[in-house]
């Protein structure tokens, strides 16, 4: 089967790196890669060829692909030129873009949406959300430290004493936890907040403080994802967050609710009460942001507070990000490539969840 | 009461000895690390086989034709000796694992 890897248009990552190619081939896949696809991630075409991939132009790929792979979905126009029944693998975010499934079906394509892989222990090795969120959390702190006009760590020096920065992490999922760990490493004082009760232990397990707000709603059925909270809770939470935010130098927000706009945890009013020079890194910016003022993919300044709304921080670390993405993809491919054949076994929970074009029982 | 007084006064040294022995027994054991509890128990058990001395003395004092006493004494010696020999041997085996390893470097 021809497994065609496209170059990303707006991202420095690439979906497949040379080192995974031999293993993909072992599964019975023939690897085609768009010329220059890995360049930004520092993988050269020569390396791909050396590992046994065929470097082709984009139009050739569109023509030949039996499996079309990219990190961000291909443009609709391009998808049209794919052969019918082509298996497209990307992150379609069907929760955010409700129409996409319909469109794909219309085009006669079969589609795996990697972001729909269940967040189970078994599927973790294919979970691109985890690996990319982890990078995002790490990068968020580096971004914050770069933007912050102050030191992160405490410094008692001959030229004066500097208190450690206070970092507040809102949402302690994968990205939040990584942000906590990184901030602590850099010497900051870290507090975190989440609505999931398990998050408290997880935060403490990284040596940070947990901010308690009582009355959060939890849904065990949500598979570990956060759920929509009551109005009253959100009010209480905002008050608590605002109290902390005013003392914080850096806020990293990661709170997402699947299929909904991200909750506003840091309203304009809070931002205006923060110290000038403070930094907010909003990792939820692609779904509207946890900060009211966030603009996606932009750094803005409001009242002296920097608000970084880069929802694609993983792209800033393209080499490792691509490596991890590529491994996720490989592990995922092992699920549906059996004896050199595509085997879309709908009994398999992972396939059933990820194959968004298949009809699911309500 | 008087007999007790008398016994006490006459055997004063013995009583000192017994009391000091008891204190010594306590003292020797009281700081033993838990890992040694079992071997120590085993070692103490072997020492309790000292009762074999009694059996030996019993046989030596018996009439050569007093077969009942002799066989009982024989039984005593066997029992005591099993306790003694087995006890020390088993303790030694338990302690084999404590052989000090040479540390790296």
């Amino acid at each position, binding site marked *: 089967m021809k497994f065609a890897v496209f170059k990303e248009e707006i991202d420095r990552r690439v979906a497949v790196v040379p080192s995974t190619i031999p293993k993909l081939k072992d599964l019975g896949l023939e690897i085609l890669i768009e010329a220059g696809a890995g360049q930004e991630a520092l993988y050269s075409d020569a390396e791909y060829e050396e590992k046994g991939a065929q470097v082709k132009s984009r139009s050739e790929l569109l023509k030949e692909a039996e499996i079309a792979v990219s990190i961000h979905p291909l443009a609709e126009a391009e998808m049209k030129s794919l052969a019918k029944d082509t298996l497209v693998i990307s992150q379609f975010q069907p929760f955010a873009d409700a129409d996409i499934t319909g469109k794909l079906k219309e085009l006669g394509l079969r589609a795996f949406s990697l972001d729909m892989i269940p967040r*189970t*222990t*078994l599927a*973790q090795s294919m979970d691109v959300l985890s690996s990319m969120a982890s990078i995002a959390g790490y990068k968020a702190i580096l971004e914050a430290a770069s933007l912050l006009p102050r030191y992160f760590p405490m410094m008692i020096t001959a030229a004066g004493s500097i208190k450690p920065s206070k970092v507040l992490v809102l949402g302690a999922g994968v990205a939040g*936890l*990584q942000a906590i*760990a990184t901030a602590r490493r850099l010497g900051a004082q870290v507090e975190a907040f989440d609505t999931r009760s398990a998050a408290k*232990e*997880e935060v*403490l397990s*990284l*040596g940070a403080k947990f901010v308690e707000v009582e009355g959060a709603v939890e849904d065990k059925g949500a598979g570990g994802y956060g759920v929509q909270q009551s109005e009253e809770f959100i009010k209480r939470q905002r008050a608590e967050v605002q109290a902390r935010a005013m003392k914080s130098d850096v806020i990293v927000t990661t709170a997402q609710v699947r299929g909904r706009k991200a909750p506003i945890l840091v309203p304009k009013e809070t931002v205006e009460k923060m110290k000038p020079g403070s930094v907010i890194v909003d990792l939820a910016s692609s779904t509207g942001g946890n900060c009211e003022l966030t603009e996606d993919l932009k750094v803005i300044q409001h009242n002296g507070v920097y608000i970084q709304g880069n929802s694609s921080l993983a792209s800033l670390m393209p080499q490792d990000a691509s490596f991890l993405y590529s491994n996720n993809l490989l592990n995922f491919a092992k699920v549906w490539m059996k004896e050199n054949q595509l085997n879309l076994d709908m009994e398999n929970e992972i396939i059933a969840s990820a194959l968004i074009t298949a009809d699911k029982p309500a | 009461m008087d007999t007790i007084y008398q016994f006490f006064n006459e055997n004063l040294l013995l009583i000192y000895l017994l009391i000091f022995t008891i204190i010594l*027994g306590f003292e*020797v*054991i*009281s*700081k*033993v*690390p*838990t*890992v040694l509890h079992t071997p*120590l*128990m085993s*070692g*103490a058990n*072997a*020492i309790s*086989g*000292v*009762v074999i*001395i*009694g*059996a*030996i*003395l019993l*046989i030596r*004092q018996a009439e050569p034709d007093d077969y009942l*006493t002799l066989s*009982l*004494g*024989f*039984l005593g*010696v066997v*029992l*005591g*000796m*099993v*306790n*003694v020999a*087995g*006890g*020390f*041997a*088993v303790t*030694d085996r*338990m302690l084999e*694992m*404590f052989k000090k*390893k040479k*540390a790296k470097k």
Partner: protein
Amino acid sequence: MAIDFFINLAYLLGAVGFVWGLRLLSSPDTARRGNIYAGVGMGLAIIAALVAPLEGANNNYGWIIGGIAVGAVAGGISARRIQMTAMPQMVSIFNGLGGACAVVLAMVELVNMSNPTAGGIGIALLTLLIGGVAFTGSLLAFAKLQGLVWDSTITLPKHNIINMVLLVGTLVVGVLLYLQGAEMSLGLLLTFLGLTLVYGFSFVAPIGGADMPVVISLLNSFTGLSAAAAGLIYGNQLMLVGGILVGASGTILTVLMCEAMNRSLLNVLVGGFGGGGSSAAKGTGDQVAKEVTINDAAIQLYYSQSVMIVPGYGLAVAQAQKVCKEVDDLLEANGVDVKYAIHPVAGRMPGHMNVLLAEADVPYPKLLDLDDANDALPNTDIVVVVGANDVVNPSALDDPGSPIYGMPVLNVWEAKHVIVLKRSMSPGYAGIQNPLFFHDKNRMLFGDAKDSLGKVVSELKNL
């Protein structure tokens, strides 16, 4: 005179050998030497007893040498042949035989009445009583440990009351015999003998199998006391001193063993249904996970060649990374090779374990990833699983019905031994039971990981 001197000196040296031996036995470095000293002391004493001048003695050396030979061979061989794991029951049976020896001496004394003073009779009766209890008690302890009898089959309802009645009965018969003095009836004497033996048996019956070591230690101090009493019969200071020494040290040792189990001696003896008590194994259904004590764990680690630590989310929760490194350092200082096996999904975020271990300054080359760790595991002596669960679950490999079937895990069961540190039997993130806990090679060490490791550190420092 001179020969008396040397005999007395030999006894004295024997006594000093016992004391010094016991003293050395209480430190791991010198314990073996201590055992040898005590043994040499015993040898001296036996020789002295053989050659001591005895007025009008017939000696009958044949009988003695024969008995010694038989006993030595029997004791020596069984001690050498016994499996490491069966040592405690062996000790128990040896101890019982010592008690039996005292019983024989006392019976002979009482039947022959060569020394019919009131004191002599009293002491002989005491020897009989204590020795008898030690004898049958030890035999039952042996049987329990060996798994020959089950606690439930021999425990009667209201067993404590029965025991009390038996004890009082035995004592009453004893007093009667004492009052009969030189004219004691053989029948009553045999009744007394029978009662002591039954009481010894009955005394141990209700005590749970897990508490047997404590009981053996107690019975051992009984044997010591009976030996001391026999020493009074024979006017032999060495028996007296040796017996008293064992009696005293055995008693304190018993108390210490109880303390180490966090229980009182009374609790063990009376209320102690050890089989179902606090030290019992926990499990679901009919499977039973076996526990290991802190000190056994420490000693196993200390005397191993290679140790693999498998950290999991529990390490993070307990914040045990630093004390874990301390264990590592102590083991490395003793020449143990310590590595860490990091499962890719251990913890709650990618790299969770890396962050923690870096914080504790564990050097990077000590961290093995999944594949390297699985290669190394078969040659590992002990795996210490610190708060990990899902990542060491064998169902992933052999139970197609398991939700994690197919996930590569750390095959810790391929190592020689596994110790799992966690607080309870509750499952990990994936919410599934872990058959590893019931694996033959595995022992559980329940408690907060930081706590448990802290205690292991203390134990290691004592070694």
